[in-house]
């Protein structure tokens, strides 16, 4: 395996990670499941590409620098998500999930029919601008921002919404607002991921942003563990690399991929890191919880033995 190949996988994992981190906020911390985030990725990808593509290859292209594309792609996805949220965030549970599914597919079908972007034939000529250092930089910024957000008052409000929506409202939390914040941030993350994706593939096709992609993102979040940022990071790395590692199995590789995901979910039902964090504070917390659990078990055992003696 040469470095170029490994670097490619790392870049894809890093790009997925950006989108997964956003989805982690929405699903893992706020409790809203989405099957349409590939739609936000697509919006980011197409807007980003529109900014950077040279006017000589695509008449609509603006030929602007890459970072303009990144910002525009993220903002574009965020703005669209705001309007989608206005309509759908009042839907409860599964209904929101289905609405996002519809949204993701609608974006794909719309792009299939927009001829200036090549429609379903695809759009070649996106400049190759995504570099590994740039992706890692964005990943780090994304993780730091998210880690600070979930530890803030706003993050705790989102967790309260996830835990018990009605009770959160009773204590005075504006549930709609916090769902909206989580949705918009997750869409901005997905949009930025889309821009990097476009400038890595150098070719865009609506098919890339199908339901399969949305599902993949949600699977990574659940696999990594709901409510854990480190889980999302590990999940993105492992699940992006896994199909590549399994290439030796050729046509069977997706079967093994599915089997591996099932096995891990059975052995760790809360995902790799459900609710825990790989940080000094997180490790302390996990240790304290483990200690408390063992103590409770010991006390329970003693109590049971006592009962047996008494009987």
């Amino acid at each position: 395996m040469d470095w170029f190949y490994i670097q490619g996988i790392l870049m894809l994992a890093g790009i997925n990670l950006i989108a997964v981190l956003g989805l982690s906020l929405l699903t893992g911390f706020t409790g809203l499941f989405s099957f349409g985030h590939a739609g936000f990725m697509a919006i980011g990808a197409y807007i980003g590409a529109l900014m950077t593509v040279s006017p000589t290859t695509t008449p609509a292209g603006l030929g602007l620098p890459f970072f303009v594309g990144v910002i525009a792609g993220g903002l574009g996805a965020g703005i669209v998500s705001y309007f989608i949220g206005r309509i759908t965030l009042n839907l409860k549970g599964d209904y929101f999930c289905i609405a996002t599914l519809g949204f993701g597919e609608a974006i794909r079908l719309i792009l299939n029919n927009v001829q200036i972007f090549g429609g379903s034939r695809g759009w070649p000529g996106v400049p190759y601008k995504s570099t590994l250092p740039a992706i890692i930089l964005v990943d780090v910024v994304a993780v730091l921002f998210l880690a600070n957000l979930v530890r803030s008052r706003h993050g705790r409000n989102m967790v309260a919404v996830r835990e018990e929506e009605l009770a959160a409202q009773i204590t005075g939390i504006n549930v709609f607002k916090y769902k909206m914040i989580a949705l918009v941030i997750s869409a901005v993350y997905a949009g930025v991921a889309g821009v990097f994706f476009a400038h890595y593939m150098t070719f865009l096709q609506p098919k890339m942003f199908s339901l399969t992609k949305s599902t993949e993102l949600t699977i990574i979040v659940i696999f990594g563990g709901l409510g854990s940022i480190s889980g999302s990071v590990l999940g993105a790395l492992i699940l992006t690399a896994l199909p590549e590692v399994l290439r030796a199995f050729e046509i069977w590789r997706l079967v093994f991929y599915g089997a591996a995901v099932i096995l891990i979910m059975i052995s760790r039902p809360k995902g790799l890191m459900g609710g825990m964090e790989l940080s000094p504070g997180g490790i302390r917390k996990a240790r304290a919880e483990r200690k408390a659990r063992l103590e409770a078990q010991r006390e329970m055992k003693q109590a049971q033995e006592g009962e047996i003696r008494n009987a």
Partner: protein
Amino acid sequence: MLEIKDLHVSYGGIRALKGVSLQVKEGEIVTIIGANGAGKSTLLNTISGFLKPVRGELRYKGKALARRPDLVVKSGICHVPEGRLVFANLTVRDNLNLGAYLRRDSARCREDLEKVFALFPRLKEREGQIAGTLSGGEQQMLAMGRALMTDGDLVLMDEPSLGLAPLLVRTVFDIIGKIRGMGKTILLVEQNAFKALAIADRAYVLEQGKIVKEGPSAQIVVDPAVRAAYLGSKSLA
């Protein structure tokens, strides 16, 4: 304090409240009794802003009541929901602190926390325990404590005795009396009509979305129709 006029609320095509009017005055305990499905919880949930009325007027302290749950809390109405709904994965203390979420007067919040602990010594003992592991009665106390932490003047209570052992039911009603002693006004929805009428100043009888009777509790409790429908035929003695 709270004034409701001609309130209509629907779930889809089903009309749950058909022109309910009622009043709660400061310092009172008012109870709403009625059978399952009469619309008692619907009424409380509408006051709290979870449900939008089709028409009707809701006024609190002379002003039109906001129609969003968080703004209702801000205006000084707190809700002890049916089925308690505590944050199961948080500690007792964190649950109580969340009640004070909208408040900025941290010194008074600490005082109120002490008051809540004085009212519910059991919660003080279990301060650091995860709320989901509390017993049903303790969770009910926690939900009440959380509501008190919002510092609202009007407390809405939805079936506080639901699913509790008879001994605990008595404790819960004792506590409701003490909460009134703290200067709160209480609007109580209960299936346990006997207990509710015993503690309340006034009562409304809700039947299929309409108020069919209202008056001082002492009068409602001896009403033959009410006795037949909600209290069984057994005598009060």
